[in-house]
């Protein structure tokens, strides 16, 4: 493990733990407030737009979306899978890399955990709205119903409800537990009284006692252990929605593994999209170093290769199975095929640039590649969902899908809402895990 968790630069000696921590906290303050406010207001406006479109959908009915038979699942599920996939990188970084003692993860773990939580929030919106009557969403959960009608867990959809709820709750607890010592530091050293009080409440009376630390460490480690299988299981279960359905192109055991790899791939792309501007904006280039970016890029390369292999095998099994419907999907060219080519270009061709070390260490190039991958991963979900539904087993049920302006608006709105939450978190939360970094720094 290299010592360069944080480039020391000219900020004092190793021994000066206090100064190191103060500097890390101080540098998380937003100096360029105007830029922040501009971004925050734009994001806020998009969030309001989202709220308006959600209200319109709920008030008018789900018919304002483009979904129709045979493509009854379209933007709602595409965007759900897209956002939940993004939510994978955070817990991957904070839990799996923690268990593997990858100490470089520390600098970026909090940002990506925050990203995870907010991405899952966006994801959760879609199935809820897709119900058509979201006020009955509680029907998905078992409750003592007077009607005597209960959720059927032999269908895959309640699995989703359980998996996503569990993932959100465990990620939230993990994130919060990690924040407690940093909140305590802010309680003791933040200036205005209201901040001391707020952080004081959030710090839960943390004293930094040996008894407290001992239990906190065990709890943190165990939550990491619990979150690790969840990272794998959530998207496996999402994939089961497709894999257990008897639809061309879906009914395949390839799905879970392929989905998980794609989720981590897309999640790292979004992580880079967030981290690269944040490190410049806050001048944190010595905390989130090029090495961090390079490691994210390497993980993208690995998971991207698994995804590429998935595309290959998907095509191969369709051909090898000999079923005319499966073969039709992969061989016949339709307008949808353009999106398939976008997917291949963004997810398979462009990431090959990451083999070059010079590119992995160049933030701008990485940012651009991450953008491509994000587009590509969305295109992938479009291809999986819409292509299969439009061309089912019976040609008499075939139909074509196109999204409406409401679909597009809601999708755009979730980006605004996501940015709104994320910008708020940058303002209010210690997004660099100072306590954990200071511990690593003290140990050398």
């Amino acid at each position, binding site marked *: 493990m290299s010592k360069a968790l944080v480039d020391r630069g000219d900020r004092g000696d190793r021994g000066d733990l206090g100064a190191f921590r103060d500097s890390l906290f101080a540098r998380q303050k937003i100096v360029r407030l105007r830029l922040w406010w501009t971004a925050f207001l734009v994001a806020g406006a998009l969030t309001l737009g989202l709220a308006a479109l959600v209200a319109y959908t709920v008030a008018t009915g789900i018919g304002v979306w483009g979904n129709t038979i045979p493509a009854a699942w379209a933007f709602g599920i595409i965007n759900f899978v897209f956002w939940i996939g993004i939510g994978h990188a955070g817990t991957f970084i904070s839990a799996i890399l923690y268990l593997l003692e990858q100490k470089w993860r520390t600098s970026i773990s909090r940002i990506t955990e925050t990203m995870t939580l907010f991405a899952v929030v966006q994801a959760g919106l879609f199935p809820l709205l897709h119900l058509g009557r979201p006020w009955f969403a509680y029907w998905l959960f078992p409750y003592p119903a007077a009607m005597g009608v209960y959720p059927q*867990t*032999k269908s895959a959809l309640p699995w989703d409800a359980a998996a996503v709820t*569990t993932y959100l709750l465990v990620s939230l607890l993990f994130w919060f537990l990690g924040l407690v010592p940093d909140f305590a530091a802010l309680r*003791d050293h933040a200036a205005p009284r209201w901040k001391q009080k707020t952080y004081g409440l959030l*710090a839960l009376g943390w*004293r930094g006692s*040996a008894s407290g630390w001992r*239990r906190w460490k065990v709890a943190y480690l165990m939550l990491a252990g619990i979150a690790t299988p969840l990272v794998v299981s959530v998207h496996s279960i999402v994939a089961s929605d497709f894999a257990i359905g008897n639809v061309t192109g879906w009914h395949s055991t390839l799905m879970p593994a392929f989905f998980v790899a794609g989720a981590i791939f897309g999640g790292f792309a979004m992580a880079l999209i967030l981290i690269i501007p944040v490190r410049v904006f806050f001048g944190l280039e010595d905390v989130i170093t090029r090495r961090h970016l390079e490691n994210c890029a390497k993980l993208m390369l690995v998971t991207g290769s698994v995804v590429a292999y998935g595309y290959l095998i998907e095509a191969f099994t369709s051909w090898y199975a000999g079923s005319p419907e499966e073969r039709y999907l992969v061989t016949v060219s339709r307008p949808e095929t353009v999106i398939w080519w976008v997917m291949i270009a963004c997810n398979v061709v462009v990431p090959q640039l990451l083999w070059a070390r010079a590119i992995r260490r160049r933030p701008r190039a990485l940012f651009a590649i991450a953008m491509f991958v994000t587009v590509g991963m969305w295109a992938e979900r479009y291809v999986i969902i819409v292509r299969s539904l439009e061309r089912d087993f019976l040609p008499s049920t075939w139909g074509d899908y196109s999204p409406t302006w409401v679909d597009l608006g809601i999708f755009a709105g979730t980006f605004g809402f996501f940015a709104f939450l994320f910008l708020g978190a940058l303002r209010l939360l210690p997004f660099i895990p100072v306590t954990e970094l200071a*511990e690593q720094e003290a140990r050398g």
Partner: protein
Amino acid sequence: MTPAGDAVVRGVVAELPDEAALLAAARALRASGVTRIEAYTPYHVEELDEVIGAPRSRLAVLAAVGALGGGVGAYALQWLLDAYLYPIDAGGRPPHMVLPFVPITIEMAFLGAGLCVVAGVLWRAALVRLWAPVFEVPGFTSATRAGFWLAVDVRDPAIAAAREVLGAGAHDFGGQP
């Protein structure tokens, strides 16, 4: 089981310049027969747990209970709802079928474990009390920055020896028992 919260609630506390000094002082305390020791540090000092003889945390037991409760509960609930109260034919599967019950059983086991671990750490580390007597010691806020503090319970039989080790800079906190 050791009591929840910090090992010392009332006692005498002193600040030490760094981790090495803290460990040395803790060893000196142990050598002079002091047993009820607590430390306050900006990060987890693992060696300290050995020096002051802290017991192993048993949160893992709680996690196991949570996992078992979550898993068994989820399976039982699925059976109750889908095989007993409302058995309908979904996808041609029999009312009670193990395989489709597995995903939710696993998820709820993890959820149960996670909730128990967090509830457990809040309870065991007494993380719901927002105030502690030691907060009143002047300069104690350095414990969350770069200060290393060592405390001894006032009821410790060797408290006199402890005062000697901790030196003149030590503060009493929490009043008398």
